[in-house]
């Protein structure tokens, strides 16, 4: 079943073309990784999906969210940011509970309970009362994942979730993401972590200059890259 | 709203507007060097020093009371002490008293924001404290003060309106007397407001332009090009 349909997406920033006609379909339960050189439009693409950026042309349709209802869209789609963007004055528990409480109408008790369950799930039970400043980068990102999950989205977007992390903490975040995917969550992950892509992706897309120029399952993607630009990219990123 | 009438009002208000500007600019011209000098002095004094205490008391009084009270202090007290000064002088005096109180803080923080390295470089070259201040520190501090001082000018123009209470014939008093004569309050206030606005807004525009130009030029000092 198609969860996400993107057609003809285009976006320019001044004279710079970030997206140059992108088409994409995502099925329920599918895990898509998107990679590419910087400036290729990866972040812009997923930010257009939850409308943090407004596309200039093209359509984005998320199943179950009628066009024009921005809030409904954002409740079905969760996002995890490169810079975590936790709310600094709220504890981990409060960060996770605030949106369900204020937007879904859960009572404080219900929201807190949900937060505790999610903290457990991301291996952070016991850190509920800590402020973001008291957590490591990897811990903060896991709280951010829990915060997005608290809204019970059908699709999770990850915008370079580990790029701002110390190498030691990258693993703990990726593990959470792998487990999430194995549990059936539909996800699109923009990342350079090729190990993760190989392990956890159903398909990998390669973007260059605003277009998806290659899309294939991991085996084919790495062993028989279907596009010369991709060949060069993989050489650079894998061949140290 | 009768444009002809408003035009006439504007013409009649120009001389009092001139008085407003003279009052404000004179007060600024006196209060700014005073503030800078006292601020620089205060920056070097330990808190317990009597001069420091006196300066702090002045600032405390000026910031903790309305300017109207400070105007009253000069207007009512000086005659009691035997001083009969012209209204204009008392007006400028009150504005200076007030503005210097705020500019001491501006001056102090401007002096303290000049990097320590500047003092050390000058000392290493053999300059004494007074010469260092005069040659190197105060000029740099002055550059940092432009924005706040222009803002202070805006504040002075606004504060000058309060001098209307002691019947000094500046812009607000003049507008008040015109409108109480012909009762056409709205139109007179619009003209008065317009005149105040173009000057106050104009000053803040000049301030931003000056600040931008000076910060481009002044960037040199922070990069430590002085020291060897």
């Amino acid at each position, binding site marked *: 079943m198609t969860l996400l349909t993107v057609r003809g997406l285009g976006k320019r920033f001044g004279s710079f073309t970030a997206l140059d006609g992108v088409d994409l379909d995502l099925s329920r339960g599918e895990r898509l990784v998107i990679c590419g050189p910087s400036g290729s439009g990866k972040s812009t693409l997923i930010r257009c999906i939850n409308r943090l950026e407004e596309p200039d042309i093209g359509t984005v349709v998320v199943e179950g969210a009628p066009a024009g209802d*921005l809030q409904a869209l954002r409740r079905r789609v969760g996002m995890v940011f490169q810079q975590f*963007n936790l709310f600094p004055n709220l504890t981990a528990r409060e960060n996770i509970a605030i949106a369900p409480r204020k*937007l879904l109408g859960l009572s404080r008790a219900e929201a807190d309970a949900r937060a505790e369950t999610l903290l457990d799930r991301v291996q952070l039970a016991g850190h509920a009362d800590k402020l973001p400043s008291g957590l490591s980068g990897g811990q903060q990102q896991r709280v951010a994942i829990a915060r997005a999950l608290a809204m019970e989205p059908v699709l999770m977007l990850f915008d370079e979730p580990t790029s701002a992390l110390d190498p030691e903490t990258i693993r703990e975040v990726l593990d959470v993401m792998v487990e999430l995917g194995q549990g059936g969550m539909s996800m699109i992950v923009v990342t350079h972590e090729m190990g993760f892509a190989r392990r956890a992706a159903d398909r990998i897309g390669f973007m260059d200059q605003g277009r998806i120029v290659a899309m294939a399952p991991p085996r084919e993607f790495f062993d028989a890259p279907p596009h010369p630009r991709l060949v060069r990219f993989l050489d650079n990123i894998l061949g140290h | 709203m009768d444009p002809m009438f408003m035009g006439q009002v504007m013409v009649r208000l120009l001389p009092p507007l001139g008085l407003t500007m003279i009052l404000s600019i004179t007060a600024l011209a006196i209060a700014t060097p005073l503030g800078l000098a006292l601020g620089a002095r205060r920056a070097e004094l330990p808190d317990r020093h009597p001069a420091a205490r006196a300066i702090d008391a002045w600032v405390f009084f000026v910031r903790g009371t309305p*300017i109207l*009270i400070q105007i009253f202090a000069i207007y009512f007290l000086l005659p009691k002490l035997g001083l009969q000064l012209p209204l204009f002088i008392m007006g400028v005096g009150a504005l200076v008293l007030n503005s210097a109180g705020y500019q001491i803080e501006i001056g102090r923080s401007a002096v303290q924001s000049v990097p320590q390295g500047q003092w050390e470089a000058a000392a290493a070259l053999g300059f004494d404290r007074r010469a260092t201040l005069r040659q190197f520190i105060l000029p740099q501090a002055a550059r940092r003060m432009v924005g706040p001082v222009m803002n202070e000018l805006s504040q002075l123009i606004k504060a000058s*309106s309060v001098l209307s209470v002691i019947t000094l014939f500046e812009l607000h008093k003049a507008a008040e007397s015109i409108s109480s004569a012909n009762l056409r309050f709205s139109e007179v*206030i619009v003209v008065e407001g317009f005149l105040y606005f173009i000057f*106050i807004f104009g000053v803040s525009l000049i301030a931003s332009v000056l600040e931008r130009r000076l910060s481009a030029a002044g960037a040199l000092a922070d990069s430590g090009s002085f020291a060897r």
Partner: protein
Amino acid sequence: MSFDWAAFFEYLPRLIRAAGVTLQVSLLSLGLACLLAPALALARLLGPAPLRAIVQAFIEVIRGLPPLVVIAFCYFALPKLGVVLSGFWCGVLALGVVGAVYAAEIIRSAIESLGKGQFEAALALGFARWRAVLEILLPQAMRRILPPLTNEFANLIKASSLLSVISVHEISQVGQSLIFETFVVIEILVQMAVLYLIIIGGVTMLSRRLERGLGA
């Protein structure tokens, strides 16, 4: 010249009552400002371009006028437009609007200084833009807002002295009439100054305590 303590105590009760009026006017206009300011800040941050322009123009105009002119407008010009308020309520309105305008700028720049990240995180969770600003960003910005805001409140209290020109019986008006009636100068001036220093000093102390509470 010696200090006339008898005169001092004779006029003290009247001035203390006037201080009560000063406080009333200041607190009411603070209340009005606290209601108006977030609305103005929201309009500036999130509104459609025409609204943003109008609000910005309004803010620039009020900031570009002496408070006395705003007060005079409320007292003399508004009645011609059909709005007749007593001196006291003109004062509340005028000071409330002026306070709101300065507070709105403080709020707006504090929220902008928080950076886009948290705003986007709130949006991504599904908060509408105005709710993201009010319920996520504003509480976070409080620590940056409170010090300048308390300074503005102190300015408001000082501006209340200007209401003496529209016969509101606050400290400056009562003090000034007393001086004219009785020719007692120093004793009354001292009382006025001390009353203001106490009120404004109290506000400053309260704000420091509040700041410490927020910093926890």
